[in-house]
């Protein structure tokens, strides 16, 4: 069912320095179109910085990012979205005083959202997106009253409304109960089956390992492993990064 149609995303020697700290250090990898790839690493490994570089919220100190055949290094966030690469935030950032429908209307008014909603109309399109994440019956209420899991869905809905080719999900499972986590995992899987390429981070391995066929591991800004979940989970360097160096406990 899933077809790989070549590379959709490529990072080449991506580096980000903040003063003396190198948050992302010479990271290179590729992602195949239509696949689902996980990114793990302990807190502070540089996952979010990497996401910020890819989505245009931060400029790399060195290196290049190619998406859908085009160099997108240094583009502004809205221009990255315009190319079809959308993201969610680890700490949810809803529009607090807008209703859920309005929250999704905003990305529907982006160039790609407008193109996608042309036939249905923006309101209809936005409700379809809301129902695809299971929030349509709460369309008229503001996000402040929602539980955390629903806010995560809203975050995904907002990215989806820009009609992306690829989604960057930053820690979509953190702080969720097991059941909610499973729901978000299911949602992610469905999106991938519909053809959206997914790049998803997590600092807890459990959810990610069962979800994605390929995992990248980061530690102290460097890419330290790339392979199937099993390979990565048994990787000596990854285990050391998570559990600490053995001599540290001696």
């Amino acid at each position, binding site marked *: 069912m899933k077809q790989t149609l070549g590379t959709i995303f490529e990072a080449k020697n991506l580096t980000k320095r903040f003063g003396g700290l190198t948050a992302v250090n010479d990271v290179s990898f590729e992602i195949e179109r239509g696949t689902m790839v996980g990114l793990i690493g302990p807190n502070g490994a540089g996952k979010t910085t990497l996401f910020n570089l890819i*989505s245009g*919220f931060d400029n790399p100190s060195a290196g290049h990012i190619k998406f859908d055949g085009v160099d997108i290094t240094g583009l*502004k*966030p*809205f221009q990255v*979205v*315009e190319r079809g690469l*959308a*993201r*969610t*935030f680890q700490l949810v*950032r*809803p*529009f*607090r*005083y*807008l209703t859920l429908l*309005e*929250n999704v*209307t*905003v*990305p529907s*008014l*982006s*160039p*790609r*959202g407008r193109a996608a909603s042309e036939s249905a109309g*923006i309101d209809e399109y936005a409700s379809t997106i809301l129902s695809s994440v299971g929030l349509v019956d709460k369309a008229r209420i503001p996000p402040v009253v929602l539980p955390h899991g629903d806010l995560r869905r809203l975050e995904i809905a*907002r*990215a989806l*409304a*820009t009609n992306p080719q690829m989604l960057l999900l930053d820690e979509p499972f953190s702080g969720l109960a097991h059941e909610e986590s499973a729901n978000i995992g299911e949602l992610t899987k469905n999106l991938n089956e519909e053809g959206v390429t997914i790049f998803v981070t997590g600092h807890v391995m459990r959810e990610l390992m069962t979800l994605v066929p390929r995992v990248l591991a980061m530690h102290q800004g460097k890419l330290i492993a790339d392979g199937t979940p099993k390979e990565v989970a048994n990787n000596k360097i990854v285990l050391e990064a998570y559990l600490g160096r053995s001599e540290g406990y001696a």
Partner: protein
Amino acid sequence: MPKASKHFFEELAPATRRFRSWALTYRGLLTLLGLLGLILVPAIQKSEYWLGIFVLADIWVIYAASWDFLAGYVGQVSFGHAAFLGIGGYATAGLVRYFGQPWWVSVFAGAFVAVVLGLTVGVPCLRLKGPYLALGTLAFSLILNELFQSPALQPWLGASGGVSGVPPLSHDAVVEYLVVLAFMVASLVVMVSITNSRVGTVFRSIRDDETSAEASGINTTKYKLVAFMISAFFAGIAGSLFALHFRGVSPPVFGTLYSFQAIVMAALGGVATIFGSIGGAYLFTFLDTFLGPFAGLSVFVFAVVLLLVFRFASGGFMKPVVEWLKEFIDILRGK
């Protein structure tokens, strides 16, 4: 021809139906009654003094609403709104006084000049966020304040003396009152319509979380610039009417006093409620007028009133007042 007009009225039918159902809601009824009351003011009180106070209040309503539009709905706080008020005033005063243009041409020209200034201020300032944006706009208004006092402008814009001897909008106080009232109502209707439109939704999203708006594929800089220009347009209209009402302008119109007045009036009525500007501006104008004779004491009373409003109705006094009125009316209707 009659066929076409019939068609026209059929097209209009849903709009009139919507208007009728809106007019029957509490809010609609209150708005219409308020409007009717304002139209009837000249029938009760024809004195130039009283009508002048109302004219000034209406001008301040437009001005306060223009600030609230930018701060309350787009989240861009300006501390230098007097720049737009002043430039609109100067443009109108200059055009009417030296080029003999009719007042209505000058009002729109003044608003247009303010929009151009909005663009000029907006492009550099909108790179700034929060307090830095506020200070950037403040700096611009202070620069204009100095600039318009420069002796080089003496022959033309009067330097520190400003422009005076501007012919009035109309020699009939009632006509002036009704014209300014029409400008006030039209300005509010346009601003409220914009905030309720899809563009308004994007504006409010930028206010709530600019980062999220960018992640939603929105070119926030472009939208903020448009909002800046809309706000400048209405502040420019207010400034133009201000210059016509006082038959002139002088550099203090660019001063911090006028910049902060916009904020005080909008906050009194309630931020992010365009209609709240009516309450805020009227309260401000009446306090300002009637406390004037007490000189130093007036500042004290003014400060106390402001503190009381902000202490007991931090969202502005308009909302609670409107709710009390509703309860009162419900009691009268026996509910």
